[in-house]
């Protein structure tokens, strides 16, 4: 029984995707769960896993091809099966545009993405995310007994609006136990349901991944990366030497999807949002002492970013006008401090978001970062995990930069740029003392935030960072 492999919507708004690369060839045998191809979406490149075992009979959409959601990209089946018939049938089904559900008595020759919801009335909007990502040809109809209850099946599983995958209660309990954010866990159950085994696998991966990826961090100082300036300077010189030797070449590289999205969005932000900048030098002694005390007996130290995010959330709570979005004819004040953290990738960047930082403890924020950041680098974040930040932090401290300005990451109206922590000579009383200091720069969208408001926020943030106990109040 051959099946069509359809382009699947990997985000609620995805209309089409580009096949970055085929990982299998025609004639190759695959198991369920094997990656068939890589699909480029807005920001992430995600592997497309085979829904079942079989042989790749035909690759319809070659690498580089842009396929609409629901379009057949390949046919899977047994060797010798007629793939052309499957393609023809799938095309016929999709052009038939079944706005009216098929009568239930009819056999189900093809479950296209649209007709996967036969229980919805004609006026109902189809859910944004198709549940059925592959079609089943010649499905054996269940031996129905007329008028009976057990033969009923319910096929409408509307997508959850939040983009959060469905999960079993046990999976949720297990995730809480392991301090794991379920949004990052891929579900192996029906309709993508996250079940216990998925959480356990993710938990053991996360445990394995966290220590391994720590040293590779360069935008996210987590462990000892808030180092004095001379260490950071050494860090600069190291990659530079190797990179220069092989870096100068004459070649033209077509844009990746991610590159073009960055270009489009940050270009729009820079030209549409009137940026202005407010700076401050923050005495970090208290916060670093607090962090050192907290980390004294911990196997895995809590990152400075987690502290900064938590304290920034406290400042945002006191200045809700900063935590807002420009919507053309209105300003939308956001109900939670959903703070994005810029993470550098090869060929781009991405900002995983920790939701509602104002309601979370430093430890929880840190645990979520430990899950999100490695997956951000691996390009396996779900769209819901990197979109809709209400505020963003970009930290180039570990690269040793003293300070910098950042471009606002919409739909947020402000972004905070963190420089390196380094000892500076400062005046305390009448004495000049060496204090560990961090330069921060807030970029604000003047359509939403005025200078005085930005200054008040930065002043508050500076005060809270310098005296973190105040953030507890």
């Amino acid at each position, binding site marked *: 029984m051959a099946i069509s492999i359809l382009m699947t919507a990997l985000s609620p708004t995805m209309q089409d995707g580009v096949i970055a690369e085929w990982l299998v060839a025609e004639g190759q045998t695959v198991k369920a769960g094997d990656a068939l191809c890589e699909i480029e979406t807005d920001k992430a490149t995600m592997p497309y896993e085979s829904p079942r075992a079989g042989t790749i009979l035909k690759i319809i959409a070659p690498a580089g091809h842009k396929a609409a959601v629901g379009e057949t990209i390949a046919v899977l089946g047994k060797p010798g099966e007629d793939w052309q018939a499957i393609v023809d049938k799938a095309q016929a089904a999709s052009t038939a545009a079944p706005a009216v559900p098929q009568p239930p008595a009819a056999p189900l020759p093809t479950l296209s993405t649209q007709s996967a919801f036969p229980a919805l009335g004609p006026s109902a909007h189809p859910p944004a995310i198709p549940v059925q990502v592959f079609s089943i040809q010649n499905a054996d109809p269940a031996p129905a007994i007329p008028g*009976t209850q057990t033969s009923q099946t319910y096929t409408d599983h509307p997508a959850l609006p939040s983009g959060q995958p469905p999960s079993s209660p046990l999976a949720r309990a297990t995730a809480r136990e392991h301090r794991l954010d379920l949004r990052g866990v891929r579900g*192996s159950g029906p309709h993508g349901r996250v079940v216990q085994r998925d959480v356990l696998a993710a938990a053991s991966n996360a445990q394995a991944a966290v220590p391994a990826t720590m040293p590779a961090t360069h935008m996210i100082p987590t462990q000892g990366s808030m180092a004095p300036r001379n260490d950071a300077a050494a860090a600069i010189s190291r990659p530079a030497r190797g990179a220069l030797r092989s870096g100068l070449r004459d070649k033209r590289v077509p844009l990746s999807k991610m590159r073009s999205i960055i270009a489009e969005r940050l270009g729009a932000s820079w030209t549409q949002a009137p940026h202005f900048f407010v700076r401050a030098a923050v005495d970090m002694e208290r916060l670093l002492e607090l962090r050192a005390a907290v980390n004294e007996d911990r196997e895995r130290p809590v990152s400075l970013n987690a502290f900064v995010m938590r304290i920034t959330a406290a400042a945002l709570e006191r200045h809700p006008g900063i935590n807002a979005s420009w919507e053309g004819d209105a300003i939308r004040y956001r109900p939670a401090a959903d703070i994005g953290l810029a993470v550098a990738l090869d060929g781009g960047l991405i900002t995983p978001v920790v939701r509602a930082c104002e309601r979370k403890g430093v430890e929880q924020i840190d645990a979520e970062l430990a899950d999100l950041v490695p997956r951000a680098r691996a390009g396996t974040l779900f769209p819901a995990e990197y979109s809709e930040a209400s505020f963003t932090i970009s930290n180039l401290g570990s690269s040793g930069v003293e300070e910098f300005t950042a471009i606002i990451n919409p739909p947020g109206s402000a972004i905070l740029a963190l420089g390196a922590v380094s000892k500076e000579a400062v005046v305390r009383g009448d004495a000049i003392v060496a204090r560990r200091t961090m330069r921060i720069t807030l970029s604000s969208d003047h359509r939403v935030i005025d200078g005085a408001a930005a200054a008040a926020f930065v002043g508050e943030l500076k005060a809270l960072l310098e005296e973190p106990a105040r953030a507890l109040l």
Partner: protein
Amino acid sequence: MATMTYREALNRAMDEEMARDESVVLMGEEVAEYDGAYKVSRGLLAKYGDGRVLDTPITELGFTGLGVGAAIAGMRPIVEWMTHNFALLALDQVVNEAAKLRHMSGGRLSVPIVFRGPNGPAEYLSSQHSQALASYWVHVPGLRVVSPSNPADAYGLLKSAIRDNDPVVVLESELLYGDKGEVPDEETLVPIGKAAIARAGTDVTIVAFGRPVKYALEAAAILEQRGISAEVVDLRSLRPLDEDTIMASVGKTGRAVVVDESWPAASVGAYVAHRIASERFDSLDAPVEFVSSEDVPMPYNHALELAVQPSASKIVAAVLRALYLEA
């Protein structure tokens, strides 16, 4: 431990209780001269005489009512229904009289009576004589309902039922009557309201009662070969239901498959599944699976008759669904 059949175990329970307490009497169609339609009462007439073992006319409402009256007056009657299919005629006496009198008399009356007989499908008996009617009794507050799945429980639960001061319905099974099993030599009472762990396991809980417990155990053996450890909970008592045992098991395994040989709607199994879903919501990794008979009158054709009932392979399939291992 003596090995005896389920039928002999029931007989021994009645024999011991009749010897122990003179107020225990047995009445029903063909229970005396014919030794019972299924020979459960064999020898009791000879031993206790026609004053205590009584053949009745074929009138379930009549002799069930006679039993209820005798119980109010101080006897401990055992009313044998030839099958629970015929007990439908006696529903009014059980539901409106036996189950209500303690409540409506403000506790001044009690009805210590046992209603017993085979329930559920046997073979080649078609639609009217193959019904699993547990819900009819379990639905009603004021009744106790037990459903022994093996000879030891048949013996111990029937003795407890006879000694109970409230009406108890015993769901036996024609196809279990010949089953052999070990029964303690010493007198033993199985308490009403206590489920048994028929087989211990860690991956999934299979809840069953009566004859399907056998299928659940068969399924567990098949699953073991696949490396799946299934725990089988034998409810034994349907009312009161031993929720502590069920919930402890599901809390441990995180997955539940409920088996009931009756129709699915408004069944005991559906209720148990609902209770698990409510009480162990946070422990569940999968929806509670339910294996019942198909929602149809029993076909006479034997292949279809077997096809509509729960079976070990249906239970295995449900377990695999609950574990997300289905092919």
